[in-house]
């Protein structure tokens, strides 16, 4: 392998794949970035076996070939190089990568490219297009409800369902559930029903926002889902298992409904939450056209705020985790939030003016 490119182009490729470099894998080679030089193309790739990312940039290739270079190291080097041309030459006999830029030069030990795992690749006929903007917008509404607890893998994923011209995503960490349905301008070529790691989709958003393409190319295989374009490919391992049936989790009816300005509510929750550290309850009392939000920390103090609210139903006091509540309120995209409640031990439902999004949140049982 022998190539020339600019620092910025190299940095672009490395940064695109950097987030998939495994940070704590026991498999050493996964801490590396695979560099592969083909005709006028430099491809960088990284995987932690859950998410794989490949990025392609143009380069002046005088000799094709491949090497796996320690990922963090290479990223750190590109960050401090001066702007300008960078030359990469791989010495296969020594197993060394020579990197030159201006008067600086590095010789880096490498891993053998042959030992690097084969990354998933879409077969030509598998690809179909999904409009990127609605895909990302839908994802943004639900992704925060996904769980980070690895002991329940299904909940660390987002259910992505594409059926004709209807895209649905759902996520839950078992304490709240968020569901968004989005109509698409046209039906997609294929249907999808997959649980995809929330983390992988987060990386996709980061990559996608940079590319600003109109459509995502998608391929769904038995174990993998692949997204991308010519510039970069991201593949994510599909999560096995049954996603909770969210329609059944939605209660049939509610006892009371409140309408509150979304921003006012979010601000009030943020202010009172200062006195409700992690996992402790924030008390919401709906009574007499007024919502009173309170939080109290033993030996520290308490906070209280009231706001006017249109509330129908009997007065009720209910406790919520402030973070779950705030994330729900922020996920509503209309000026007004509808909060629907049953009683202090049953789920509450947050929604906007339309019914295409709902966020179910379980209360914290309050101490009497």
């Amino acid at each position, binding site marked *: 392998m022998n190539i020339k490119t600019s620092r910025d182009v190299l940095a672009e490729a490395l940064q695109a794949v950097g987030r998939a470099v495994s940070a704590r894998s026991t498999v050493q080679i996964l801490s590396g970035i695979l560099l592969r030089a083909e005709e006028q193309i430099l491809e960088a790739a990284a995987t932690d076996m859950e998410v794989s990312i490949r990025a392609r940039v143009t380069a002046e290739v005088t000799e094709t070939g491949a090497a796996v270079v320690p990922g963090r190291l290479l990223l750190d080097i590109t960050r401090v190089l001066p702007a300008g041309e960078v030359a990469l030459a791989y010495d296969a006999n020594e197993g060394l990568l020579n990197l030159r830029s201006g008067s600086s030069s590095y010789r880096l030990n490498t891993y053998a490219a042959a030992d690097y795992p084969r990354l998933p690749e879409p077969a030509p006929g598998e690809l179909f297009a999904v409009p990127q903007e609605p895909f990302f917008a839908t994802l943004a509404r639900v992704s925060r409800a996904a769980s980070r607890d690895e002991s329940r893998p*299904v909940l660390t994923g987002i259910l992505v369902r594409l059926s004709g011209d209807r895209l649905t995503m759902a996520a839950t960490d078992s304490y709240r559930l968020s569901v968004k349905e989005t109509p698409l301008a046209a039906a997609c070529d294929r249907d999808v029903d997959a649980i995809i790691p929330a983390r992988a989709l987060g990386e996709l958003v980061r990559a996608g926002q940079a590319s600003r393409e109109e459509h995502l190319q998608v391929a769904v295989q038995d174990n993998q889902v692949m997204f991308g374009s010519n510039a970069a490919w991201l593949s994510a391992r599909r999560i096995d298992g*049954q996603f909770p049936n969210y329609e059944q989790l939605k209660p049939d009816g509610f006892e009371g409904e409140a309408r509150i300005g979304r921003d006012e509510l979010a601000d009030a929750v943020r202010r009172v939450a200062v006195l409700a550290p992690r996992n402790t309850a924030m008390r919401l009392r709906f009574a007499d056209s007024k919502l009173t939000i309170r939080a109290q920390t033993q030996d520290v103090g308490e906070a209280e705020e009231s706001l006017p609210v249109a509330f129908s139903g009997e007065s009720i006091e209910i406790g919520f985790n402030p973070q779950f509540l705030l994330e729900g309120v922020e996920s509503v995209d209309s000026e007004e939030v509808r909060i629907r409640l049953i*009683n202090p031990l049953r789920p509450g439902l947050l929604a906007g003016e339309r019914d295409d999004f709902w966020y179910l949140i379980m209360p914290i049982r309050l101490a009497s």
Partner: protein
Amino acid sequence: MIIAHLDLDAFFAAVEELEDPRLRTKPLVVGGDPKGRGVVATANYVARRYGIRSAMSCAEALRRCPHAFFVRPSRNRYSAYSRTVWDCVREITPTVERTGIDEGYLDVGEVASDFGEARAVAEAVQISVRAATSLSCSLGVASCKVVAKIASDRRKPGGITVVRTGQERSFLAPLDIRLLPGVGPHSERRLSAAGIETIGALAELDDRELSTVLRGKVGRLLRHRAQGIDPRALAGPAEAISISHEETFPRDVESRTQLYAELNAMAGRVVERLDVLGQAGRTITTKVRYGDFSIRSRSRTLAEPTDQAERIGEVACQLLDRALQDRPGALRLVGVGVSNLVNERQLPLVDSSELQESSGAAAHAALTVRSEQEDGPHGT
């Protein structure tokens, strides 16, 4: 900070003596049946001369002193005395932390500005307790809990020991390492194997030596205590830190089915208490005692607190299996405890046990909404 530790002297026995003054000059043991499998709860000072100690089996106590009087504990009576004691202590030092029916800490710093005054406060407490109940108590006064606690035991019965700031280390140094709160049988074995017999010897260890004897946090905590350093403040009104229920069988039990049934029934009793307190717990413990008196306990901490009898019973039975796998045998006692208690509990939308079952098994039916109200007798 000036803290006193108050310890009532031979409390249960002292109450019994008050109820029946004839017992005062006789060896008296409060505890279980000496012909059965009871243990000594408290012995009076006469009985202690025969070598009778708390937690000894009553049969052993009877062997050491065949003419001892054995009395069954009357807990209600002790509770009533204890309340009176603490009511009159609070009149002198308003902030107290009861750590047991017969002991607790007093915030003396609230009413005394130096150790001279603190001694006077301790004397006032003693006099007041004696006047109200005729009971005798011992107090230790020091700058922190651990030293106060050890000091209260130095001049029993009826003594007051004051350890002034700066004297903590020299006071503790010659004392037996076993007197240091926090040194259990396990740490004691390790310390003794390393030739550390006194609190002073532990206090002198450097980091490297310490790490070879006692690992991690526990080691550093115990060394701090040995040095007379203990930042713990008085805890607020005593809340339950664990709820447990246990039962000694009339005869050792080997049948797993019967043990499961016992554990499940006890889980129900524990849940009754949780309900009263409005609490849920994350850690479940099963305790077993074998025919030879040895005790084992196994615990598991759940991801989320629970107050469900079925869940507690299920985990308790699994823990029993684990204990019996490690050491099989017939049991004279089993117990179920719940700790890591919380008042407020995040309710789940999706039941975790159902989720476990369904993950990976596509054929499983959908999960259902879980409603606390439909599940159990909780009010709103």
